[in-house]
């Protein structure tokens, strides 16, 4: 009995001694811990400090345990775990670490004092323990993602991401194509370019681009990136094909599974998706492809929209070009007409001042050549008494006109002109030249110098340029009216022999 009691006494006294030793030691340890923690706050990634804190925690855990101070040991153990995580990844300590450690330190200090004072009242250490546990978990989680813990994306998410990424880069390539081809006008070239981009960037099994031509047919322009040579182009009439009407007029997408007649129209395609290139009032054409994956179909619909954009721009360019050409033509015409009318004005002023018919004929004949650009001109005036037509003036290199005179019917075109009052031309006379003395006129016209009530004569001219007969006619009529007065006043002006101005 006494042995057991003695042993117990010895154990108790040993334990008590260990306790006292530990409590004294702990005082120092806790002071050091305090200092280290303060320093760690300043230098959160110091490995040295972390190690020192670790050793203290380790000692507290062990020694407090031997001394029977279980609570202090537990706290020490949690601290050690926490430091373990920090040291494992050589991580910097966080503010939650510091907080948890100071909380732990405060509690250890309290527990030590109570033990030293013999105060056995209970203390709840669980909150501090939890704090240290949480800090340890946070430190451990830093291994996987920085900052917060993230969920790893699933395999399905990843696949979708890849698809969208791929689709985005394809659409970006197409956008680039649209911008870079804005200067291209030719639809067929655009179709081939588009087919090529689709083949290279999107890689369906096969693709072809068809365009509407003449509003009545759809023609295959490009296949798999190459222009189809004209002789080899397939055509489908829109009116006779319900599938084409659905596609071009109604502008619906056609899935081969729903329209058997379509696969007949597109030999070589396995199960094509056919998309209209949408426009108003009807589609420009369509895009047919055998996609590799069904998910790509949505992307292809964007492609069809890009194609529509490109074609619309090219059509607008063409329209602008045509209008510009027309404006250029009109400008040239108006310019020329303006020049002619200016000349006519000046000639008419000159004619107004003339006092006798011979001078009038001279000015008129010269005006035809110089202002109206005829190659030559000759004027014959009626000599009523003699029943003849007398040559008065020839310009543009014609010889001997003043020495010529013809009876009315001798020169058939003259006779015809006087009889009908109309312009007569070489075309009306089976293209034969007009012989006036030593002169052979080609490309000729004959028109009357018509006064108010009678025709005074004719002018014959050779045309080098077209489009002057109206101006010639205006001048000839004006002269005719002037001649009304001049001939009246100069009754003796026209007679046999050389024409000469009246004195």
């Amino acid at each position, binding site marked *: 009995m006494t042995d057991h009691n003695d042993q117990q006494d010895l154990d108790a006294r040993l334990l008590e001694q260990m306790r006292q030793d530990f409590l004294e030691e702990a005082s120092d340890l806790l002071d050091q811990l305090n200092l280290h923690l303060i320093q760690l706050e300043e230098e959160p990634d110091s490995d040295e400090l972390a190690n020192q804190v670790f050793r203290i925690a380790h000692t507290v855990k062990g020694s407090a345990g031997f001394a029977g101070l279980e609570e202090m040991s537990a706290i020490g153990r949690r601290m050690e775990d926490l430091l373990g995580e920090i040291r494992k990844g050589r991580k910097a300590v966080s503010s939650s670490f510091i907080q948890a450690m100071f909380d732990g330190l405060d509690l250890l200090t309290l527990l030590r004092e109570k033990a030293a004072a013999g105060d056995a009242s209970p203390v709840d250490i669980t909150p501090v323990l939890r704090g240290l546990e949480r800090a340890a978990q946070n430190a451990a989680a830093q291994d996987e993602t920085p900052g917060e813990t993230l969920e790893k994306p699933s395999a399905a998410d990843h696949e979708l991401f890849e698809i969208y990424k791929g689709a985005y880069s394809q659409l970006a390539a197409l956008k680039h194509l649209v911008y870079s081809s804005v200067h291209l006008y030719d639809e067929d070239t655009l179709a081939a370019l588009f087919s090529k981009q689709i083949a290279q960037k999107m890689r369906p099994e096969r693709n072809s681009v068809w365009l509407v031509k003449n509003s009545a047919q759809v023609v295959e322009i490009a296949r798999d990136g190459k222009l189809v040579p004209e002789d080899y182009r397939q055509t489908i009439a829109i009116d006779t094909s319900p599938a084409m009407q659905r596609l071009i007029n109604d502008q619906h997408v056609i899935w081969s599974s729903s329209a058997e007649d379509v696969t007949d129209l597109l030999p070589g395609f396995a199960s094509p998706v056919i998309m209209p290139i949408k426009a108003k009032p009807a589609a420009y054409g369509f895009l047919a492809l055998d996609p590799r994956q069904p998910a790509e179909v949505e992307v292809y619909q964007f492609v069809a929209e890009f194609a529509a954009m490109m074609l619309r721009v090219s059509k607008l360019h063409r329209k602008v070009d045509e209008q510009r050409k*027309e404006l250029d*033509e*009109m400008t040239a*015409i*108006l310019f*020329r*007409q303006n020049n002619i*009318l200016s000349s006519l004005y000046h000639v008419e002023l000159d004619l107004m001042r003339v006092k006798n018919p011979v001078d009038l004929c001279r000015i008129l004949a010269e005006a035809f050549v110089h202002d109206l650009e005829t190659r030559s001109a000759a004027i014959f005036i009626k000599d009523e008494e003699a029943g003849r037509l007398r040559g008065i003036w020839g310009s543009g290199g014609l010889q001997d006109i003043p020495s010529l005179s013809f009876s009315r019917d001798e020169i058939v075109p003259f006779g015809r002109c006087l009889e009908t*009052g*109309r*312009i007569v*031309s070489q*075309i*009306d006379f089976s293209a034969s030249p007009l012989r006036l003395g030593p002169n052979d006129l080609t490309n000729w016209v004959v028109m009357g110098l*018509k006064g*108010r009530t009678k025709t005074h004569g004719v002018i014959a001219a050779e045309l080098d340029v*077209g*489009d002057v*007969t*109206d101006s010639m*006619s*205006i001048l000839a*009529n004006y002269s005719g009216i002037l001649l009304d007065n001049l001939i009246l006043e100069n009754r003796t002006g026209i007679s046999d022999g050389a024409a000469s101005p009246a004195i």
Partner: protein
Amino acid sequence: MEKKILTVDDSPSVRKMVEFSLKSKGYRMGGAGDGIEALALMDSERFDAVILDVNMPRMNGLEFLEKIKNDENYAAIPVIMLTTEGQDEDRDKAMALGATAYIVKPFKPTQLLNLLDEVL
């Protein structure tokens, strides 16, 4: 549906000017250089009015006018005469043959457009 107008004149400039003025007002245009071409064109296309020059080779305007006014297919189509002749003789002849109106060259585009408005 826009109206379709046939211009018959041996001068390409006149045809171009008429076409330009009329097209900008929404008319559709056709052109012929003389009466024979014009008849061929009217055979294949339907026109709502004809603008007709008088002085043309091969078949002048008055001959052409007579032809179409005597053809039941074309008799109802209004005809506007264009000419350099200021004389009454031509005008009277044309009106007698059934022309609807008469304009002397050179004319202002607005004159022609107003006239066209009236006859259509």
